[in-house]
């Protein structure tokens, strides 16, 4: 299912995978290996992973017309000395996102919490549509030494 290097000794993940729900498991399996290899603090890893899963799910769900063939996205994750960082790129329709307007919906809402959760868990989150690509950048600063 996955193509490319799903995490290695380099402290990074680079994946280009189909934009479909099952790919979320591929991403989380790769993250689990990366956290273990790099000895990342579990609380920090969970915070970052929560934000990354929400953005990845958003890309899978919203960035493509349902019948668009060959839907893929590219994810790069890097464990740096100062921060955990990720970048997602997809060539789907431009996401209409205004991160400054994101709030949690009412308690009985069954959807619409993803971006608010990502903003709450990540220290940095940006989205831009550039040269035909949606580009998301995510980071959590390391406090685990």
């Amino acid at each position, binding site marked *: 299912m996955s193509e490319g290097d799903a995490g290695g000794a380099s402290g990074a993940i680079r994946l280009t995978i189909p934009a479909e729900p099952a790919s979320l498991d591929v991403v989380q399996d790769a993250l689990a290996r990366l956290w273990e290899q790099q000895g990342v603090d579990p609380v920090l890893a969970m915070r970052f992973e929560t934000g990354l899963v929400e953005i990845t*799910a958003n890309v899978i769900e919203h960035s493509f017309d349902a019948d668009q063939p060959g839907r893929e996205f590219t994810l790069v994750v890097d464990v740096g000395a100062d921060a955990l960082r990720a970048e997602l790129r997809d060539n789907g329709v431009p996401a209409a996102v205004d991160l400054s307007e994101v709030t949690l919906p009412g308690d009985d809402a069954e959807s619409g919490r993803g971006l608010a*959760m990502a903003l709450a868990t990540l220290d940095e989150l940006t989205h831009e549509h550039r040269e035909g690509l949606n580009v998301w950048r995510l980071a959590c600063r390391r406090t685990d030494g």
Partner: protein
Amino acid sequence: MIELDVSTDPRGVGVIAPRGRLTMVSAKQLREAIDGLVTAGTARIVVDLAGTTFLDSSGLGALIAGVKTTRQAGGDLRIARPTEAVTTVLKLTNLDRVLRPRESVEDAFDV
């Protein structure tokens, strides 16, 4: 991936235990399991989260849908034994008020 254990205890309370990650990948399975129990006449359901290692907004949506479905049928949905990861997400989204975690599956409907 996730495994869902579904059972009904002697008091007629349905128990669903998702083991693994409760995300976009598996939320639909949980919705279907809840709907299946309610359709079969079991409107009081406990979701045992002791084996749920990760919860995302889709998983939360399935739990909220379950609260609505069970209440409409005259019952309720309660959660028990959440892991640290799940508790963090519940607090982050202020849903620990709607989905108040219970300490045990057996006592989830006692208070």
